[in-house]
């Protein structure tokens, strides 16, 4: 990642999309604030955040569908801040598919090309290629109304594909599909990215999609990027309390307390020797976080330095794993176990915590320590 400011010409060499100081306000409401991202060529960037945080707004700015009130956008080295959407070398896939309802799949794919006055054989070739990649061959003559959700989604992707663009933009393309189809298309998308190697910017609020698809994830809140990093980095070392609570299902357990030296003191006391502090630890109010799947139970907990006992409120067996909902010091405490377990509701169990896998946040700034 770029740390220094190289001169324009070279700065954009490896960069596909560059967003500088982007600002957008609807009237007096600032939706995007001083946003800066550089997206590498061929990178799969996921914008993740709660509803209303400005993900779609950002994507629309990149696509040229919304005019920023400040800042610049570069695509493939070109300043496109004021360019028309169709001139930016982008393709976009929408949540509602936005297929042209009365045109056949083929016309849907070729409408934009015809309009750009591409020669006929060129159009044919591109449509054929997209149809092949997306397995749309047998559907070409159908109307969108006669397609299933997944097929529609593929046509929508195809429409972006035929435009032969550098950057693909996806706005929650899978959220209208059922879980099974979503999982399948997710993998297909991943494969597509691997074979096409275009830059892709993908908006979602589903963290599973974000985790599995992204090269990097940008977590947004209130129009500001909270953390921009590889999925596992975000998962393992969330930059702040918000990110920590946002990523992971069920969410990370938080325990309020204080840091004294390197020891956490709260309803449980945890010596934080193995923990990688980002700066020298300072005493003060902190929040201790541990993911449900990093909590060990009973036998497995035996080896842990930190142990405590909790009562199980609810057991949720999910086949491949099991969730336990317990209470620790009045707060909900979630535990995730692999596979199936004989633990029942009402049991008292011993839980163990490995400080090396925990996170510590400053109570006030909410930043990771």
């Amino acid at each position, binding site marked *: 990642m770029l740390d220094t400011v190289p001169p324009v010409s070279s700065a954009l060499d490896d960069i596909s999309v560059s967003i500088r100081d982007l600002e957008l306000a609807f009237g007096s409401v600032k939706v995007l604030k001083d946003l800066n991202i550089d997206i590498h060529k061929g990178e799969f960037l996921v914008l993740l955040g709660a509803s209303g945080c400005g993900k779609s707004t950002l994507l629309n700015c990149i696509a040229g569908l919304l005019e920023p009130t400040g800042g610049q956008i570069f695509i493939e080295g070109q300043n496109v801040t004021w360019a028309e959407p169709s001139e930016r070398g982008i393709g976009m896939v929408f949540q509602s598919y936005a297929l042209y309802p009365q045109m056949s799949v083929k016309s849907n794919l070729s409408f934009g090309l015809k*309009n750009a006055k591409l020669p006929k054989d060129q159009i044919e070739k591109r449509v054929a290629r997209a149809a092949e990649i997306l397995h749309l061959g047998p559907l070409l003559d159908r109307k969108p109304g006669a397609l299933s959700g997944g097929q529609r989604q593929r046509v929508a992707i195809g429409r972006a594909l035929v435009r032969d663009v550098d950057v693909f933009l996806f706005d929650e393309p899978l959220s209208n599909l059922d879980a099974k189809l979503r999982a399948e298309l997710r993998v297909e998308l991943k494969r597509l990215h691997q074979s096409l190697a275009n830059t892709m910017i993908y908006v979602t609020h589903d963290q599973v999609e974000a985790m599995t698809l992204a090269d990097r994830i940008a977590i947004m809140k209130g129009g500001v990027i909270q953390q921009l990093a590889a999925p596992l980095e975000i998962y393992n070392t969330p930059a702040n309390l918000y990110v920590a609570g946002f990523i992971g299902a069920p969410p990370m357990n938080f325990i309020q307390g204080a840091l004294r030296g390197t020891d956490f003191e709260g309803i449980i006391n945890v010596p934080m020797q193995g923990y990688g502090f980002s700066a020298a630890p300072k005493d003060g109010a902190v929040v201790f976080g541990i993911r449900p799947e990093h909590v060990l139970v009973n036998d497995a907990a035996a080896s842990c330095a930190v142990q405590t006992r909790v009562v199980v409120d609810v057991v949720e067996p999910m086949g491949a794993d099991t969730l336990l909902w317990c209470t620790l010091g009045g707060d909900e405490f979630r535990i995730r176990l692999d596979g199936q377990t004989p633990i029942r509701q009402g049991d008292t169990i011993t839980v163990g915590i490995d400080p090396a896998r925990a996170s510590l946040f400053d109570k006030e700034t909410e930043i990771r320590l």
Partner: protein
Amino acid sequence: MTALPDPDRGAVRAKAAPARRPSRLLHNPMSKVAAMPMIATALVIFVGCSLWTVVHSFTDSKLLPRLNFVGFEQYERLWSSSRWITSVENIAIYGVTALVLSLVLGFLFAALLDQRIRAEGIFRTIILYPYALSFIVTGLVWQWVLNPDFGIQNVVRDLGFASFSFDPLNNPDTVMIALLMAGLWQGTGLVTVIMLAGLRGVDEDIWKATRVDGIPAWKTYLFVVVPILRPVFVTATVLIATGIVKLYDLVVALTNGGPGSATQMPALYVYDAMFAKQNLAQGFAASTIMLLAVLVLLIPWSIHEFGGKKRG
């Protein structure tokens, strides 16, 4: 938390339900009672009166309906009447033109209003307000505006174009234009509003998609939005068509069928036959033909629209 034992538990449950399937007819009796006015209207007024009309079209009723059957005599006369044939031609010309123009202009105006313009409400009101006026009013005003001695022609001549001539009301060749000017003035507003409502319902994403695809706005309207608005066009067409079939008041108020028979319409013919010529049966025969025409046009459409479709 455990459920408190509640003394009234199950109080919501009513008496024992019937174990047998109740009669279908008595099922939800209220809904049938409530539908009575509709059923009565449909059967007595629309079916009953239509049948009554058809039956009497085979009689020689004059001023009063009577059942003295004369076969197809009325129809033979009807179709040998040049006025009736002119009427049919006129309504065909007017109907097609008015329908097409209403839809096209309505859509055009709606598209204009949809361009995020300032004062949209004002423009919309301006286009819609004539719909609030009766045909008597419309006819009167346009007679006045088109009057060659006071109206447009006179004004343009006063401006120095002495040879300017625009007198559609008195020229059989162009009187249809006058009728259209007034008819469209009165009716396009509603079509515009309907279309506008339809446009507002079009998925925002479709617009974004066309912008990304680089489709110019007019093409998007024509090839993408119009097909999406099909149900809207159907609604508008039904509304316009009912107006056209019944076209009477406006013609009476504006031209009274003239000059000559240039704006004779079937409804006018019916009215004249029944009340001026006092030949009810002739009027009934003409109405029967009108009904028949409506059926012929409507049945295929209604099968297409309503057939097989369920809720909504």
